[in-house]
Every structure is written in structure tokens, then in C-alpha cells.
């Protein structure tokens, strides 16, 4: 069967990305909203999970410069649900627009995070397991793995999307919070489920701090307590056949989160490529809203106790 032509990207996106998003947003609108205290990281994970029963709906965008090809804007929606206080599950749907080329849907991811220890410790481990079903045109750069380099993304979408990846990704999220500082380290390993493909390695590290440690008595949008600033760094570490830093790309990105009392969180990040294999600039932004009581709503729909 021939692949779906790239000339119908609009219909493709609506049916696969926007429609499920609208359905979930409709369901979520029946739940109440709650203020999230979100970290500013876009690539790095700290050890904090979604509150049980809450659904967080997020939209992210990454604009990337591309030498030897067209710049792109990759985007993804995340639906993050707190199943319990120690388990968060999340669905991603992603697409991208490559300028002067096309807009396409690039795949889905299903992520699960499991808190390993009941209480807070100086270093808190969380196990992250993700299944990815993406094509080669996926450009969200949610993580930079193995020998991923800028030139991998230069081909037109029609060629890139011929590659189809089923990958298992695992991370150990190590995170510590001390005197307002959060420091997180994520060793990452990825395995394409094709036996011939090697294990790939990567890392992400981040540090952040709120701009104010004490809350003011009144609600405010622009007070310093609502802002968390930080920096993150991420990149590839080669693969099992060729580990190391050669032919890898790395980024350093200042990050900022603005947690609004009106239940929205805005994240901003500008990542700068640290070597010639990296995109020069990755400008990222995200908008998210947390809906508490979503689990209760689902429970009621399926006959749970009111």
C-alpha cells in the first residue's frame, strides 16, 4: 500500500491530532482546574509526578534552524494523567511543519513514570519507560540520542517519513531539591525494536530555582513567586557500537516557567547548539493547563461511586 500523500496534510492532522485533542479537552473541561507548580524544564525531568486524578493538557512547539535544509516548527500535545501518587502516564501526539515543504503527523508516544521511593530523599529516583511509534520526520527533539546530528533532519519530509521507528526508551530520573534549588540528571537509553539497531545513549541535566521563596498574601500574575528560572543541557552519548561524544549533538538552554494563578503554565526556552553537529538554535515554548478531578469524572462515567 502506498503511503498517504503529503499533499493532504491538513486532513491528516485534523483526523489524527486535533480531533483526539478536542475530545480530551472537552472531557477535561468538565473537570475543575487547579494550579500546577510546574518545573521550567522542557527536556529534563525532575522527580515530581502528576497529582493523582489530575489531567494536564500541554502543547509544545520547537522552532529549529536547519543548515542544508529548511527550518522547521515541530509541535506536540501531551495528555498527562496522575494514576496514583507514584505512577503518571502520558500520551504524546506529534507533528511538524518544515517550511517550504509540508506539515505532517509524525507519531505517538506513550510514557510512564514510576516513583521508586515512598518518601523524599536527597536524591529521588523515578523510572521512566516510553514506547515510541514515530517516523523519521519526527523533529520534536524531546531528547537528543545516540549519534543524532543536525544533518539527519535536512532531507525533505517525503523522504524522512519513509523511515518508521518503534522504539523503547528508558530513563532514570534522578532529582534533588534543596533550599529551593532543583537539580535533575536523566541518563537515557533507547532501543529501536529492530534487532539490528544498537542501544543508544543520551543525557539531560537541569537546574532551576523559583524567583521568590515566599508567597505573597494576595493573588497576582506577575509576582516573582510565579516564576521559576533555570537552565538545562542535553545531548547524545553515542550508541553501544560506538559510544562517546564523536558525531553527537549537544544543547544548552536557559528555561523559564510562569505558573499563572488562572491555572495556566507558560514555558519558554531557547536552546543553543554547542557544536557543529547541533542545530544553531532551538526556540521552544509550551502552554499547559492542569485539570483536577478528571479521574473522578472518568470514574463517574464508568459507574464509580460519586
Amino acid at each position: 500500500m502506498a503511503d498517504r500523500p503529503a499533499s493532504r496534510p491538513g486532513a491528516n492532522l485534523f483526523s489524527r491530532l486535533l480531533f483526539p485533542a478536542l475530545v480530551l479537552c472537552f472531557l477535561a473541561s468538565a473537570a475543575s482546574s487547579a494550579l500546577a507548580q510546574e518545573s521550567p524544564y522542557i527536556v529534563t525531568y525532575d522527580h515530581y509526578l502528576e497529582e493523582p486524578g489530575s489531567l494536564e493538557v500541554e502543547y509544545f512547539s520547537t522552532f529549529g534552524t536547519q543548515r542544508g535544509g529548511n527550518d522547521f516548527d515541530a509541535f506536540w500535545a501531551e495528555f498527562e494523567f496522575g494514576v496514583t501518587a507514584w505512577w503518571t502516564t502520558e500520551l504524546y501526539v506529534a507533528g511538524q511543519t518544515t517550511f517550504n515543504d509540508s506539515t505532517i503527523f509524525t507519531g505517538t508516544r506513550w510514557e510512564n513514570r514510576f516513583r521508586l521511593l515512598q518518601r523524599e530523599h536527597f536524591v529521588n529516583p523515578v523510572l521512566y519507560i516510553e514506547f515510541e511509534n514515530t517516523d523519521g520526520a519526527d523533529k520534536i527533539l524531546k531528547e537528543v540520542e545516540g549519534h543524532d546530528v543536525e544533518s539527519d533532519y535536512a532531507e525533505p519530509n517525503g523522504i524522512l517519513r519513509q523511515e518508521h521507528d518503534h522504539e523503547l526508551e528508558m530513563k532514570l530520573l534522578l532529582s534533588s531539591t534543596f533550599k529551593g534549588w532543583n537539580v535533575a540528571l536523566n541518563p537515557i537509553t533507547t532501543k529501536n525494536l529492530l534487532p539490528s539497531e544498537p542501544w543508544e545513549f543520551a543525557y539531560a541535566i537541569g537546574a532551576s530555582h523559583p524567583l521568590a521563596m515566599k508567597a505573597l498574601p494576595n493573588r497576582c500574575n506577575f509576582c516573582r513567586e510565579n516564576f521559576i528560572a533555570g537552565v538545562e543541557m542535553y545531548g547524545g552519548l553515542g550508541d553501544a557500537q560506538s559510544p562517546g561524544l564523536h558525531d553527537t549533538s549537544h544543547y544548552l538552554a536557559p528555561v523559564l516557567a510562569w505558573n499563572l494563578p488562572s491555572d495556566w503554565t507558560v514555558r519558554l526556552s531557547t536552546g543553543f547548539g554547542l557544536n557543529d553537529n547541533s542545530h544553531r538554535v532551538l526556540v521552544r515554548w509550551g502552554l499547559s493547563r492542569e485539570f483536577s478531578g478528571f479521574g473522578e469524572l472518568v470514574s463517574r462515567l464508568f459507574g464509580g461511586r460519586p
Partner: protein
Amino acid sequence: MKTTTMTTTFAVICVLISSVLIFGSLARAQKHVIDGRQRWSYEAMTQAPETARVRRNPLAADPDAVAAGGKLYELHCNECHGEKAGGTRWGPSLLRPEVQNAAPGAVFWVLTNGVVRHGMPVWSKLPEPERWQIVTFVQSLKSRPDRQLGGPTR
């Protein structure tokens, strides 16, 4: 063929996630219902180590702490513990003597560490002064005439 495979995988993922949502929610909804009544244990309050229990609330004398803590309570705690801290099906009453008469350090310790097994997340992501503001607010409820002490045993 590729499109069919992607559609099938997407459908399988949707079914799996729906199952997680439904069964997770149902399990959570009935977690604390025993013999038709909701019961809560305040055991976590007694598990705070001595070093945590003896910590003094550095904001006890801060005139803004109660108001700021009330704001934070409304934003982060309201959903589970109720608008008037009297408890809901998701979280226990904070008006009970087990909380009101506890050492501030013990309340702070529970807030920081959560009670993960019973659904309360850790709140160490809030800066330490903000957690003390919440503790100050919660323990101020015993002296406020508009709050009824000793909510039902939930």
C-alpha cells in the same frame, strides 16, 4: 502498509491508556471506602522523625503567613482536603486534633514527604517557606471561629 501499522499501533495505545484511565480512576475512587464509609488514618503524622518534629515554624510570627498560606492552600490543597479543610473522599480532614495539635514540624514533614501510598503526593516542589506558610495556615484553623473543629473521622 505503514499507515495501517501506525493506525493500529495508535489504536492499541489509545485502548491501553483508556484502560489505565478507567481502572486507575475506579481503583482510586474506591480506595478509601470501607463498609460504605470513608476512613482515613492519621498514622503519617506519627511517623515524622524526632529531628523533623522538633523543628520550629520560622514563620509562626509572620503576620502575612496565614493569608499567604491560605492562598497556597486554595491553590494546591483545596481539591483533596476540601474548601474548609474538612476533608473529601480524596483526603482527610485537617481540622482533626491529630493535625491541629500536632507539632508544626510533623505537619511540615508530612507535607514535604507526602503519603504516597495513600495518594498524597510529595510537596517538596514548593519552596520551604511556602510549605511553612501552608502549615501556619492549616494550624491557624483551630483558632478561627468560622471553622468547625473536629470534622468527621474520614
